[in-house]
C-alpha cells in the first residue's frame, strides 16, 4: 500500500515528521510500521512538547527510590516499606463514553502501580466538568462517577479522596484524572527494563480485540464536531479480569521469575515492547500469530495498535515459564510466549513466518521528535476591585451562596458510590483534607490528597503552579503527615498555541519552585495536551497528587471540631486578598485579577510548626484555609462535627469581607483545648509564626460576634442540597 499524505495525516503525523521517519529508516515504512511510528511519536507517548520543560522538575530526594520514567514513582517510607503511586488522565475517552472511559482510566492507573510489585491500597481522582447548566454535564458526571466506582469497587480497592469541579471551560472537554497508590516491600520492586538475550517475552491477561485502535493518537488530537462520529471502538473495562491479573502478577512476583514487566497501556503492545527493549538497549522479536485474539482475522496492524485493557508483557528468567504459566492458569488468564529478546536492537514483527515490519528501537524511543515549542508569557489582567463599587450583601448570604454552590457542595452523593472502607485500613476517608491509610498490620500510615486550582493557574500560571503544590502540602500537614513526594497530571490545551504553551511553561516553573523549596520532589506524572475544541481551550489544570507519612498512628487528626469551649486559633497572616476568590466569583461573577501571592518561606514555617504541634499531641483538629477563605473553612469544621463556633471580629483588618473571605495562603485553623493553649502559643511564638486567637467552639450555632448566627444543622443542609437536587 502506497503511503499517501492523507494516510499520514490520519495517523496524526505531520508531513515533516514523516520525512524524518523516512530518513531514520532510510526507506519508506509500510502501513504497519507507519502505525507504530504514529503510536510512539504522538504527544501522549513521546512527550514531544513537554519533555524539555519536565526535565526541570526536581525529582530526587532522601525518600525517592524511583522518580519519573518508570510505570510509577516509588518512595521509601521507612522499615522495609515502599509506596508506589502515579496519576493519569483519561479525558478524551471519558467525554466520548463516560462510564467506560472513567472505568478504564482507573484500570490503567492500577496496572501502572501493580506492575511495579505494589498491592494498590488507595484510589483518588480529580474530575472536572462543564457548567452544571450545560446539557451534557449531568450525564457525564453520572457516567464518570459510576465508572470510577464500578472499577475500583469491583477490584476491592478503596477510593478515598478526590476533587470534583465545574467550570464552563470544560463544557466540551471534561477532565478525568485517576491516581493509584500502592504498597510494596522495598526489596521487591519490579521495573520495565529488559535484560539478557533470548529471554522469553510473555503475553498475559485478556485477549486482544479491536478496542481503541489509535486511542493514543486520539488522546493527542483536538476534538472537532466530527469526533463523536469518528468514534473508534470504545474500550470496555473488565475489572474482574484486572483483579485476576493483579492477583496473578502479585503471586508470580513472590519469587525471582520476572526480569522485567510492563503493562500494556496507551498504544498497547507497541509501546510496552518498545519501552522494555529501549530501556534494556536490546532488540525484541514478536511472533504475532501467537497473540491471543478475541476477534477473527485480526491483522498485525490491529494487534500492534489495539488498546484492549487488562494485558501485560513479562520477560521471564530462563526456565521459569512452566512455573509462571501455572499461576496464570490458576487465575484463568491467557499466558503465551510471544517472542524473545534479541541483540539486533530492532523491533521485529513476524506474522505467517514472514517479517512484516522491522524498526530500530531507537527510532521509536530516543530519536522520537522533541519540540521546543514557542511560548509567550502570560499577559496579566490587572483589575483592582473596590468593594465599595459592588452591590451590598450580607455576610450570611455570601456564605450561603458559596456553601450551596456546585463547587463547594458536600460531595457525599459522589463518595457514597465508592467503596471507601474495603481493605479495612481506611483511617480517614473523603470529606477531610487528606485521606489516611494505615499500612496493613503496622501502626504507621500514609496520607494522600489531590488538588488543582485552574482559576489561579489561568490568571497567573506561575503563582497558580506554586499554589497547588502548597495547597496539596497543606492538606497533608493538617492530618499530621509529613509530605514526602508528589505525582502530577498536567491537563492543558493545544501546545501548538503559543499562549497555551506559555501557560504550561509558567505553571511548570511555579510547580518546580514550590517543590524545590518545600523539598517535595515529583516522582511520577502524566501530561494531557489538546484539551479543548474548536480553538477553545480548557483552563490550565495541573493536578497535584501528594503522599505524606504518619510515622506513628495514634490519634488521627481531622478537620471536625472535637470539643465544646475549646480555642480556635488562626495560623498565618490575613491580608484580605479577594481577587480570584470564591467570594467574588460566586457572588458577583467577577473572574479577573491576580490570585493570592505565595510566600514559600511562610508556607514552610507555618506548615512545619503545625506538624510540630500535631506531633506533640497538642491540638484537637486542624483545617487549611483555601477556597472561600476563613469563614468557609470554619463552617466546614462546624458542619462536619456536632459543634458550632463563636468567632470574634478582627482586631486589625476592618473590612469584614476581606477578612472572612480573603484567600491569603499559608493559613490554617486549629482547635486547641484550654490546658494546651499556653504550650501551643509558646511553640508558635518561638517559631516566629503569626497567629490569632479568633474564637471558641460552642454548641449548636455558628456565629460571628454580632453579625451572623446560623445553626450548624442548617449550614449542613445548605451544603448538602445541591447534589441531591441535581
Amino acid at each position: 500500500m502506497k503511503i499517501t499524505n492523507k494516510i499520514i495525516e490520519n495517523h496524526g503525523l505531520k508531513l515533516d515528521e514523516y520525512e524524518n521517519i523516512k530518513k531514520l529508516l532510510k526507506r519508506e515504512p509500510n502501513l504497519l510500521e507507519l502505525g507504530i511510528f504514529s503510536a510512539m511519536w504522538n504527544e501522549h507517548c513521546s512527550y514531544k512538547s513537554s519533555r524539555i520543560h519536565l526535565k526541570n522538575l526536581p525529582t530526587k530526594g532522601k525518600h525517592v527510590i524511583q522518580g519519573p520514567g518508570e510505570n510509577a514513582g516509588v518512595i521509601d517510607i521507612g522499615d522495609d516499606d515502599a509506596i508506589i503511586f502515579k496519576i493519569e488522565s483519561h479525558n478524551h475517552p471519558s467525554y466520548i463514553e463516560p462510564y467506560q472511559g472513567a472505568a478504564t482510566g482507573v484500570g490503567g492507573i492500577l496496572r501502572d502501580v501493580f506492575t511495579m510489585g505494589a498491592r494498590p491500597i488507595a484510589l483518588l481522582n480529580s474530575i472536572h466538568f462543564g457548567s452544571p447548566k450545560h446539557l451534557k454535564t449531568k450525564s457525564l458526571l453520572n457516567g464518570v462517577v459510576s465508572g470510577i466506582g464500578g472499577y475500583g469497587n469491583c477490584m476491592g480497592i478503596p477510593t478515598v479522596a478526590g476533587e470534583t469541579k465545574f467550570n464552563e471551560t470544560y463544557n466540551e472537554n471534561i477532565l478525568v484524572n485517576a491516581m493509584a497508590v500502592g504498597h510494596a516491600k522495598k526489596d521487591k520492586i519490579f521495573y520495565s527494563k529488559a535484560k539478557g538475550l533470548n529471554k522469553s517475552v510473555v503475553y498475559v491477561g485478556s485477549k486482544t480485540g479491536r478496542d481503541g485502535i489509535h486511542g493514543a493518537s486520539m488522546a493527542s488530537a483536538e476534538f472537532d464536531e466530527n469526533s463523536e462520529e469518528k468514534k473508534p471502538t470504545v474500550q470496555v473495562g473488565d475489572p474482574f479480569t484486572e483483579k485476576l491479573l493483579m492477583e496473578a502478577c502479585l503471586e508470580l512476583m513472590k519469587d525471582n521469575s520476572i526480569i522485567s514487566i510492563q503493562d500494556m497501556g496507551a498504544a498497547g503492545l507497541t509501546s510496552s515492547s518498545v519501552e522494555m527493549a529501549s530501556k534494556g538497549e536490546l532488540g525484541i522479536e514478536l511472533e504475532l500469530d501467537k497473540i491471543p485474539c478475541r476477534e477473527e482475522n485480526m491483522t498485525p496492524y490491529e494487534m500492534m495498535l489495539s488498546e484492549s485493557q487488562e494485558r501485560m508483557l513479562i520477560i521471564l528468567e530462563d526456565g521459569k515459564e512452566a512455573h509462571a504459566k501455572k499461576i496464570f492458569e490458576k487465575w484463568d488468564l491467557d499466558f503465551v510466549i510471544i517472542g524473545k529478546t534479541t541483540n539486533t536492537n530492532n523491533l521485529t514483527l513476524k506474522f505467517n513466518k514472514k517479517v512484516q515490519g522491522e524498526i530500530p528501537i531507537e527510532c521509536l524511543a530516543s530519536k522520537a521528535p522533541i519540540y521546543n515549542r514557542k511560548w509567550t508569557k502570560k499577559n496579566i489582567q490587572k483589575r483592582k476591585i473596590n468593594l465599595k463599587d459592588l452591590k451590598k450583601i450580607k455576610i450570611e448570604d455570601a456564605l450561603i451562596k458559596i456553601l450551596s454552590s456546585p463547587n463547594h457542595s458536600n460531595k457525599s452523593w459522589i463518595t457514597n458510590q465508592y467503596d471507601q472502607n474495603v481493605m479495612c485500613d481506611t483511617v480517614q476517608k473523603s470529606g477531610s483534607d487528606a485521606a489516611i491509610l494505615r499500612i496493613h498490620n503496622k501502626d504507621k500510615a500514609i496520607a494522600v490528597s489531590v488538588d488543582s486550582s485552574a482559576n489561579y493557574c489561568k490568571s497567573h500560571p506561575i503563582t497558580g503552579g506554586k499554589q497547588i503544590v502548597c495547597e496539596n502540602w497543606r492538606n497533608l500537614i493538617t492530618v499530621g503527615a509529613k509530605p514526602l513526594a508528589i505525582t502530577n497530571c498536567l491537563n492543558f490545551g493545544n501546545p501548538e498555541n503559543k499562549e497555551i504553551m506559555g501557560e504550561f511553561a509558567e505553571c511548570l516553573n511555579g510547580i518546580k519552585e514550590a517543590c524545590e523549596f518545600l523539598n517535595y520532589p515529583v516522582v511520577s506524572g502524566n501530561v494531557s495536551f489538546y484539551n479543548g475544541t474548536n480553538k477553545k481551550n480548557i483552563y490550565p489544570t495541573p493536578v497535584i497528587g501528594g503522599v505524606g507519612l504518619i510515622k506513628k498512628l495514634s490519634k488521627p487528626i481531622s478537620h471536625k471540631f472535637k470539643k465544646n469551649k475549646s480555642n480556635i486559633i488562626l495560623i498565618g497572616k490575613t491580608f484580605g486578598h479577594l481577587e480570584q476568590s470564591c467570594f467574588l466569583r460566586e457572588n458577583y461573577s467577577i473572574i479577573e485579577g491576580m490570585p493570592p501571592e505565595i510566600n514559600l518561606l511562610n508556607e514552610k514555617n507555618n506548615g512545619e510548626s503545625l506538624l510540630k504541634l500535631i506531633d506533640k499531641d497538642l491540638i484537637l483538629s486542624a483545617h487549611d484555609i483555601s477556597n472561600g477563605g476563613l469563614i468557609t473553612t470554619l463552617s466546614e469544621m462546624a458542619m462536619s462535627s456536632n459543634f458550632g463556633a463563636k468567632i470574634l471580629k478582627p482586631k486589625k483588618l476592618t473590612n469584614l469581607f476581606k477578612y472572612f473571605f480573603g484567600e491569603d495562603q499559608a493559613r490554617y485553623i486549629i482547635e486547641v483545648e484550654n490546658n494546651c493553649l499556653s504550650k501551643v502559643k509558646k511553640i508558635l511564638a518561638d517559631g516566629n509564626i503569626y497567629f490569632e486567637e479568633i474564637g471558641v467552639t460552642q454548641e449548636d450555632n455558628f456565629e460571628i460576634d454580632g453579625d451572623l448566627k446560623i445553626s450548624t444543622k442548617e449550614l449542613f443542609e445548605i451544603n448538602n442540597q445541591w447534589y441531591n437536587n441535581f
Partner: protein
Amino acid sequence: MKFSVTVTLKKDVLDPQGKVVKNTLVNMGMNNLKSIRQGKHFEVEVEGNDQSIAEEKVDEMCKKLLVNLIIEDYKINKI
C-alpha cells in the same frame, strides 16, 4: 401498545459478562456452546392507537436513554 426492545453490544466490543458466562457454561459441561453474548431487554408499554407514532416514541426512548449508541445496537418489535 406493547413493544420489546432488544439491546446488544456492537460487534467487536468486549463483552466481559458474556465471556465469564461462556466459560462457566463450558466448565459445567456444555461443550458444544460456541458463543454467548449478553444484552438487555425491555418491555415497553405506551398509550395510544397509532403504531407508527408509538414506535417512534419508543425509538426516541432508546436513543435518549435505554441504549448507549456508542457501544450498543438495538431492535424494536411490536408484541
